[in-house]
């Protein structure tokens, strides 16, 4: 734990959610959420199922734009250039090129390991072999997968185990040098040993990148995050240093959830 920490508002901020509201058709899924994302820190979103934590995470890279019937309002400001990620004038593709995402279930493309990792570069029109090779190695190393796959980069990604597939998806997300990395319950489909390795990885990654993670596992939030936001029924109930949320929550509802009285 960092003894010299001060007020959150004095820390460098990478992104801010401001007065964010979200509707699935008639259903008001997120209500007036406002919270910061500190630079090169891990922020965890926790709360019972249906509280809107995944919805909030997926708003960061405009995944909701893929489906009809979703409406949202408010701002998510990305620093340092203060781009509002939700501004309709901002192309969702631009947003997604700056923020990367790792999904709940590993979703490698039906391609080779190598092609999966450099997909982001391909999409950006990079064709130079040496650049791609370097990127692939760098990303796979960062995702702690290089040793296991360096001799079979051109095998199909489906041949990997579930944990390897998820690390491949992390490598794929890292290979685009994202400013923010979004994790949507990245370990919910994995066994405890693999989960531990992914958590370790997240710990290392925050040296370089700002991380937002949704988890349904409170212990995981406590282990990996610096900040925690507790959400309930579409509202942000409490946001603060992870230790504070877990040791002395200010809100009764947070306390009930943390102590396992529901959820």
């Amino acid at each position, binding site marked *: 734990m960092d003894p010299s920490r001060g007020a959150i508002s004095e820390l*460098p*901020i990478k992104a801010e959610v401001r007065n964010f509201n979200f509707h699935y058709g008639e259903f008001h899924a997120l209500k007036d959420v406002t919270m910061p994302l500190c630079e090169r820190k891990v922020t965890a979103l926790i709360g019972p199922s249906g509280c809107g934590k995944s919805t909030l995470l997926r708003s960061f890279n405009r995944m909701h734009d893929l489906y009809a019937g979703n409406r949202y309002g408010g701002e998510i400001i990305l*620093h*340092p*250039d*203060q*781009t509002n990620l939700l501004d309709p004038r901002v*192309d969702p*593709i*631009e947003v997604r*090129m*700056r923020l990367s995402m790792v999904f709940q279930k590993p979703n490698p493309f039906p391609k080779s390991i190598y092609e999966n990792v450099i997909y982001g570069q391909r999409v*950006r*029109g990079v064709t130079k072999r040496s650049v791609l090779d370097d990127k692939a190695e760098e990303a796979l190393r960062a995702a702690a997968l290089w040793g296991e796959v360096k001799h079979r980069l051109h095998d199909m990604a489906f041949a990997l185990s579930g944990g390897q597939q998820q690390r491949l998806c992390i490598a794929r997300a890292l290979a685009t040098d994202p400013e923010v990395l979004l994790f949507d319950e990245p370990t919910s489909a994995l066994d405890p040993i693999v989960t531990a390795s992914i958590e370790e990885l997240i710990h290392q990654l925050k040296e370089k990148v700002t991380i937002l993670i949704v988890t349904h596992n409170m212990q995981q939030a406590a282990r990996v995050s610096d900040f925690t936001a507790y959400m309930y029924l579409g509202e942000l109930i409490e946001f603060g240093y992870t230790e504070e949320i877990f040791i002395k929550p200010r809100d009764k509802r947070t306390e009930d959830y943390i102590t396992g009285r529901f959820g």
Partner: protein
Amino acid sequence: MSSSAPSDVALIRAEIRRRKRRDLWFGALGVLALALALLTVVTLFINMLIDGWARLTPEFFTSFPSRRAGQAGILSAWVGSLLVMLVTASVAVPLGVAAGIWLEEYAPKHWLTDIIEININNLAGVPSIIYGLLALGLFVYTFGLGQSIRTAGLTLALLILPMIIVATREAIRGIPQSIREGAYALGATRWQMVRHHILPYSMPGIFTGVIIGMARAIGETAPIITIGALTFIAFLPPAPLVGTPPFVNFEWLSAPFTVMPIQIFNWTSRPEAAFQQNAAAASVILVAMTLMMNGLAIWLRYRLRKNLKW
């Protein structure tokens, strides 16, 4: 905190603009491909309408074919088509629906069931002219049914049988298991369950499939040519209903006949332009009929999807 964008944001934006242009191009290509398909239908119909407009008179429907193009009509052809369709429907619908019910509700997990399923899939892909050869060898020469309305009706019935089976199965598959369990729980036998629940609830879906099958059958030419339909028929088959008991008469089943597509083919292959006009006029009627049948089926299916939410 600096308020200026990092330099690569500008780069990213330029890159995105470039890529989105390609998206736009492909979108235009897609619209173009669709338009080409649509345009073909429209051109085809308008072209035939212009060619055949002068011949689309009431007399065209009430005249027999003639050596003089200007006096020729489609009376024997449309009557023939109607009677052939009657045979086709009365054979294909009960057979296809029964087979579909057996496959969905009765069939055991068994190699024989697998074979029947694979076989139906394969039959759906057999070219129609092969059915014509089957009918020529089997119905005409082995069973001695002659080059008659019943031969043509049976041939087209076999041709559309796979379509009706598949439509029946799909309609039945949409019925949730809870309906079956509910009927069984009240002591229904399997057949009671099928007759009281499965059949009525799947009826609209089956009906849709039957219409599409009939639309296919009415336009089929090749198998009818193969069994040897005559193209010059200047008389009508005996009427199926008569004024004296027993009021029905089955002689029409063994009568020689012609049908709309055969008549069109015959006129198309004549060199004189006047006959081509007849072909165009008859085509307009045939196309309008199939379009209406298919349109009705599509509309029914659309309504079904909207109304039925299990």
